[in-house]
């Protein structure tokens, strides 16, 4: 049913404005790529990291300085930034998250909420709330098909999302650490009994996720302006997508991103609805959560 509905909507959009599909897909790539690390943390460490988007923001600032002060291109800087962010994530895990793992979920929620505020406000304190942007010439690349022309650079986000989804799959099924992470995610106590170091696995997965979202911060900077609160909406969008898909369902995150991205872009293309396009996402998030709640109740 969902597949046929999707096809109908896609065909309708294609006949109306094909560029909506292209830009929607590009936006979906960004959303999915940012959401996948959150899904990883939720699936293995069982924590909803409400400072997820803020980690991306911090990485984007780091990349900005690498570009401005050292002249490193963001696409190159993303590797060292990713490593630095992974280390940063490890430190945050050891200092805060680890201590709250046994605490009630409420505490974890408020803890990561507070972490997010601390990160965004620390950046605000250091660099003011002004928004910064890099002007890179390669991001304006475009292509023309028939009478439609559109930017092509943003397909890098789609590529990133696919790479992340595929890489994660390989990691979880083919590597020793990945298999351990999967086992810990399913049953931490059982994993501990068979000799897996649960704490080390948590630390690794959390650091990995922060490193990945750090790489996304570098990619994000190539195209978007950054300011201290830029990450907040991405925390919510990621949570929305992960909740929509359900824990452990990466494919679901990809499909959800496409729906969200295309819906947002479609709204901005209708003049009467343009002011309301920012509401779409919040309505979708509530609808998703409610649908999930009803589904769980009836199941």
């Amino acid at each position, binding site marked *: 049913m969902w597949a046929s509905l999707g096809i109908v909507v896609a065909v309708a959009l294609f006949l109306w404005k094909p560029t909506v599909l292209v830009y929607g897909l590009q936006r979906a790539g960004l959303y999915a790529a940012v959401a996948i690390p959150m899904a990883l943390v939720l699936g293995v460490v069982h924590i909803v990291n409400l400072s997820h988007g803020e980690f991306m923001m911090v990485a984007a600032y780091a990349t900005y300085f690498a570009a401005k002060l050292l002249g490193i291109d963001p696409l190159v800087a993303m590797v060292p930034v990713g490593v630095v962010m992974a280390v940063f994530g490890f430190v945050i895990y050891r200092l805060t998250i680890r201590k709250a793992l046994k*605490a009630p979920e409420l505490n974890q929620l408020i803890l990561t909420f507070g*972490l997010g505020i601390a990160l965004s406000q620390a950046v605000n304190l250091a660099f003011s709330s002004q928004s910064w942007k890099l002007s890179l010439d390669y991001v304006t690349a475009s292509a023309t098909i028939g009478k439609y022309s559109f930017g092509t650079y943003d397909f890098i986000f789609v590529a990133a999302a696919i790479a992340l989804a595929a890489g994660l799959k390989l990691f979880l099924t083919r590597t020793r650490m990945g298999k351990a992470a999967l086992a810990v995610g399913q049953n931490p106590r059982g994993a501990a009994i068979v000799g897996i170091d649960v704490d080390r696995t948590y630390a690794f997965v959390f650091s990995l996720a922060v490193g990945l979202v750090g790489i996304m911060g570098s990619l994000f900077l190539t195209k978007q302006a950054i300011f201290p609160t830029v990450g907040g909406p991405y925390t919510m969008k990621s949570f929305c997508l992960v909740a929509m898909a359900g824990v452990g369902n990466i494919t679901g995150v990809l499909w959800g991103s496409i729906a969200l991205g295309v819906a947002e872009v479609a709204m901005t293309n209708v003049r009467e609805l343009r002011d309301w396009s920012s509401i779409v996402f919040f309505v979708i*998030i509530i609808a998703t959560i*409610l649908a999930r709640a009803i589904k769980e109740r009836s199941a």
Partner: protein
Amino acid sequence: MNRRLGIIVGVLAFVAAACLPLLSKVAPAIAGPYALSLARSIFVYLALAVSWDMLFRSGQVSFGIAGFFGLGIYGAAIAGISFGLAPWLSILAGGAFAALAAAVFGLVILRLRAIYFSITTLALAEIFRIIFHNGGDFTGGAEGLIMPSLFSNDDGALYWLALSGVAIALVASSWFARSKIRFALTAIRNNEIQAKSSGIGIYKYLMIAFVVSSFVQGIAGGIQLQSYGSAAPDDAFNANYTLLPLAMALLGGVYSTIGPVIGAILLGLASEGLKLRIPYGHLVVYGIIIVLVILFMPNGLYGLWLRGARRREGSRRGDKGDRSGGLGAGKAPLVAGDAGGPVAKEAPHA
């Protein structure tokens, strides 16, 4: 703290606070226009912190304080401007509007738990902001609405108005603490299934907590409107109105009335000092406080004080502690305000 003593101290402190403006000629440092306007802003945060805690006692974390606060501001402004309601009534209208919205949305979202509830309240606040931002002439769009104040710039009167908002919050909170609502909310927080099987109407009590706390937030919004005279979407629904009360309640000590009050006064004064030195980014302190409190002092200052007092008393009462779902569960034996309190099986039937 002894119950009766608590009430007496509270009432005395309140009377002292009410007398403050009378000193404006004698001691301008603590009762001058600047001090009174600072007190007003702290009072608004205080009411929000107490109201957030009222819902939090059921184990539900709201990240949408700013949403219902903003609804109160706009409800009061629209009632005053479009319907010509008297300013006094418009404040009540703000509270009623927020409470009504809470009742309507609560029908659905109170079925949600934990992170799902929290994220939904956060999203609702954003939705409210966008609606009022795009509302056209009726809501004044991005510039918002201007409303002439009830007591234009009479600092003393505005102070008393804000203080009466505090009074409403404190009365509502004490009502929760002294009636069977407290048992119901504590039971729901500790173990919802157990509470349900003891015959507690979970949904009913969550609804009461949600509607009453939103009403208090709406009243605070109506008072804020009288204080500043304008309702603009980005101010009314500012995320700070979620962040600051939450940090205040956590620092002071949750699940109590006195905790959020202590937290609001301390953090309100501290942040005023910080704001003067660091105009941008002083909120970082709030984030750090939230993190530190959760990690090292989950029961807040009041919880620490209670524990100290109990140790001095020589643990006569025999701590039963909070079962689960509490902030300090598993670490500290007791949670402020529910000292050895009854759990589900002693809760009255609904």
